[in-house]
């Protein structure tokens, strides 16, 4: 797959999604180029998380088309999304607290040998390598994820996305409830992802977290895209005004 920054990698065209009478997404169009970090911002109830769930295969759009690298796709399930190279960082990181780091990194995609017995040694070694490459020093991949700090948990979740060679990473409120240090770490991770040519959709309603790292911003309100603007064309204050004024 070529990593041409100018070409769109992700295109979502005319996406509609309703839950009963509630219209969550109303004719949304989004493009994201290779290696681009898109800040998808807006207030609560804007439809951002629903869009992410559609990309993650958890929800299905009522109408609209999705293209990855120019090819039209229909995302049936979370497993299908993963197979297409879409990894999602959910708000709660999608980690199981009572399981260790290695098992969490490989959750749902466990390497197995004869009769589907786990290749535990391989899981532990690979987890340790990937965490080390991200500069995360957890101590042991045998440690239960529930014992980690918020930033470390986020690191494990990102490590999972990196290991499975995502082409597109969607992050739904990745900095929520993190300490200042944790937020900084997430921002550094996103920069690293961009450096690797991975397209990132960064969903948040906290402008201070996304502004330093995004290449462009897409503002949503009540299920619609109200504005798309490049970072060099806007300041942080102007961005906040745009969100409020709609």
């Amino acid at each position: 797959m070529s990593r041409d920054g100018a070409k769109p990698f992700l295109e979502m065209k005319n996406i509609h999604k309703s839950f009963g009478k509630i219209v969550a997404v109303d004719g949304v169009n989004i493009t994201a180029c290779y290696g681009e970090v898109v800040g998808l911002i807006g207030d609560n109830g804007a439809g951002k998380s629903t869009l992410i769930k559609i990309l993650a295969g958890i929800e299905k759009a009522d109408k609209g088309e999705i293209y990855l690298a120019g090819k039209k796709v229909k995302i049936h399930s979370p497993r299908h999304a993963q197979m297409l190279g879409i990894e999602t960082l959910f708000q709660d990181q999608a980690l199981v607290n009572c399981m260790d780091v290695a098992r969490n990194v490989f959750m749902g995609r466990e390497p197995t040998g004869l009769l589907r017995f786990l290749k535990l040694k391989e899981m532990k070694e690979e987890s340790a390598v990937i965490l080390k490459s991200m500069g995360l020093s957890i101590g042991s991949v045998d440690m239960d994820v529930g014992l980690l700090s918020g930033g470390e948990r986020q690191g494990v979740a990102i490590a999972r996305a990196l290991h499975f060679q995502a082409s597109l990473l969607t992050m739904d409120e990745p900095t929520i409830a993190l300490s200042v240090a944790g937020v900084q770490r997430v921002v550094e991770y996103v920069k690293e992802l961009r450096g690797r040519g991975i397209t990132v959709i960064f969903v948040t309603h906290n402008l201070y977290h996304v502004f330093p790292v995004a290449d462009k911003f897409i503002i949503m309100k009540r299920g619609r895209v109200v504005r798309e603007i490049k970072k060099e064309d806007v300041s942080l204050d102007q961005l906040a005004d745009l969100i409020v004024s709609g």
Partner: protein
Amino acid sequence: MNLSCLRLRKVIRYRAFGIFAVLVGLLLVFYFVTPEKRFFDPRAIRTILTRASEYGIIAIGITFLMISRELDISVGSVFTLCSLLFAFLYLKLGWDPIFALLCTLAVGAMMGSLNGLVSLKFGIPSIITTLGTMYLWRGAALVAGRGQPIYYRGANPFGFIFTARLGGFLPMGFVWFIVLTIFFEIILHYHRFGNRVRASGGNTKAAREMGINTDRTKLICFALVGLLVAFASIIESTRIGEGSGRLGIGYEFYAIAATVIGGTSLFGGIGTVIGTFLGAIILEMIRTGLAVMGVSGWWFNVFIGTIIIVVMVLNVFIMKRVRR
């Protein structure tokens, strides 16, 4: 946090360690308090092992189910129905015992699956679904059997495999309990299915987001419970020589108690089969110990209820300490 400290904590956190300590403690208590050390009479020990295995095998399935964050309280009724079914197929219809066994296991698995399908498809808490099926299956057993047991009258369909005593002492039912414990403990910790059971119960939402079909995983656990119940019912009914509506009464209580005492969390994600194995033995040790001491059997339920609460509080306390 250095690694040796982490490892020690891991051992302590391995819940079976705590349960084993309780078992050893109980042995010491009964050694000193039972008159003439009657607790250690071979017949008393054999009774403990036999009884523990009868609902302990069921408790293995309950362990998987509870780890996946579900529950089945109909197991006692399924046990009753399966004991009657096997006796009917083998003795009344004259079926080959292997065929009758396979059919009974299949029916048990189907009954478990029905619990799972109703709970998962309609979003009904499994405790409520199985409360209904508990009465359904027990009623069906009474209707089908007309309240009458089916006696084996000396027939022994499987010979030594279920009814013999190894070395003249160890009941085969307990041997099966050991074998199944080891097998399912390995599955739980080293097999992909066991991993997904823990994920499905530890954080169902996260497991789904990671592509795990949690409904299918839980459904298999429900079916497994039914299968193990059927198997246990055949062992017990062939051992005592009858298929009967009086078998299995209260087994849901003992199986769940053994699972909880063994350290499995009602909130999902945490548990070991070895812990359940020890939990079943502890339960029977208490029952037998009280009987040998001449204490009224009614006190057994009082003790069990108290122990369940104490064990659960202790587990929470230990886990909080480890996390600091």
